[in-house]
């Protein structure tokens, strides 16, 4: 296997199991080596530029994150017209604020009230509003969260330390399409008089997913 390195050999069946073994099963056992193997092949074939990979990693690690979403929330707490606009259609304002990018094409903002608490999940995969919140946290992608939060949201939220009163209904949004939901939490007591910069520090990432509430900065 692999001795024939000619282009003509590319589609030839060398081993009987070739057509039943999926590509991924032919990769090395260690995850790190699997990534390296694919990267090396694609770079070697002139199909991937390693500098482009560096640029993507830099962008995800250093240029996107939940501070973008916090700006939106803090502004909604202080600007009623903005709040009304983003609840009706968030995209024009998000575009104005430069908060755009892949996985942020169709953002819908859902508002917490004393009657309804919103929480977001993607039961089928891990859909998440990257331009507003960055890449998803480990728990958001976990089987336990995906499986359980639709069936027992209150139990799951309690595991995050959030115990909801029975007067508040829970609305769980399962992101099965390309709509990306952002939770607008209620402005906490004790923040009267704070400006948007100060309020931003209260907006936790989990508050914008619905697994937490805004918190006084440490």
């Amino acid at each position, binding site marked *: *296997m*692999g001795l024939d*390195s000619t*282009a003509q050999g*590319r589609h030839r069946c060398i081993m009987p199991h*070739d057509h039943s073994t*999926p*590509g*991924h099963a*032919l*990769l*090395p056992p260690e*995850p790190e080596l*699997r*990534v390296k193997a*694919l*990267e090396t*092949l*694609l770079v070697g*074939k*002139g*199909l991937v*530029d390693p500098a482009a*990979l560096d*640029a*993507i*990693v830099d*962008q995800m*690690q250093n240029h996107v994150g939940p501070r973008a979403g916090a700006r939106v929330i803090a502004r909604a707490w202080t600007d009623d017209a903005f709040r009304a606009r983003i609840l009706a259609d968030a995209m024009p304002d998000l575009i104005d604020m430069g908060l*755009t*990018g*892949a996985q*942020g*094409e169709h953002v*819908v903002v859902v508002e917490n009230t004393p009657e309804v608490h919103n929480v977001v999940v993607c*039961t*089928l995969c891990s859909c998440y509003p990257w*331009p507003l919140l960055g890449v998803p*946290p*480990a*728990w958001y992608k976990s*089987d*336990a969260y*995906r*499986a359980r939060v639709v*069936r027992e*949201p*209150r*139990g799951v939220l309690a*595991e*995050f330390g959030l115990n909801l009163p029975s007067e508040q*209904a*829970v*609305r769980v*949004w*399962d992101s*099965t*399409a390309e*709509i990306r939901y952002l939770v607008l939490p209620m402005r906490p007591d004790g923040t009267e008089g704070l400006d948007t910069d100060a309020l931003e520090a209260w907006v936790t990432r989990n508050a914008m997913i619905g*697994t937490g509430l805004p918190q006084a900065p440490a």
Partner: protein
Amino acid sequence: MSRVHDMGGRFGDGPVDTAEHPAFKAPWEARAHALTMAAMPLGGWSIDARRHGRETLPPATYMAYSYYEKWIAGLADMLVSGGVLSRDEIASGRSDGPRPDIEARRLTPDMVAANAGRMVPYTRDDAPAPRFAPGDAVVTLARPGNAFVPGGHTRLPAYAAGLKGRVLRYHGAHVFPDTQAHGLGEQPHPLYAVAFAAGDLWDAPEHPRDEVVVDLWQPYLGPA
């Protein structure tokens, strides 16, 4: 008929590990993410094809693999099925040679920078008219499944199949994953946020007023 990734409502998972961890627990995870994004133009794969690639991993593999191991495995399978890499190349780790036919699709660092805030909307104008409006009662297909490809990609979760719900929002017409994932075209259809009462979804709902809202395309829905 559902596949292993369709786990909403499943029993048996333990508590959620709510601890904070770095977004990428090791450098190879960031690399797996970046490599997947950089490889998508090579086969012209849509986001739906990418999801399908992971969902078709054997169930035992899907459950055993960590999140980014699934990404890498899905990518390897797509590269093979899309003719970008051969099984021999993956098995040997040795390239058969350059691919001048598709090398123009290679992503450059400049393109990454230029694409940073770029959006490619999934809404389309040319689609069937919406049959429902907010407030309408609807019922979901009794059997979730891809109508075009047996065992294929679909976005009606099994837990929400065969149930009565109410249209909460109309999102416009969106690219239809059931066709797009399989190279059968975008075939856009109206998309709705449909609310289901916890009491209709679960045997033992936590609270009578709780709801789950699922984004569903018109072909998944009928009038209730």
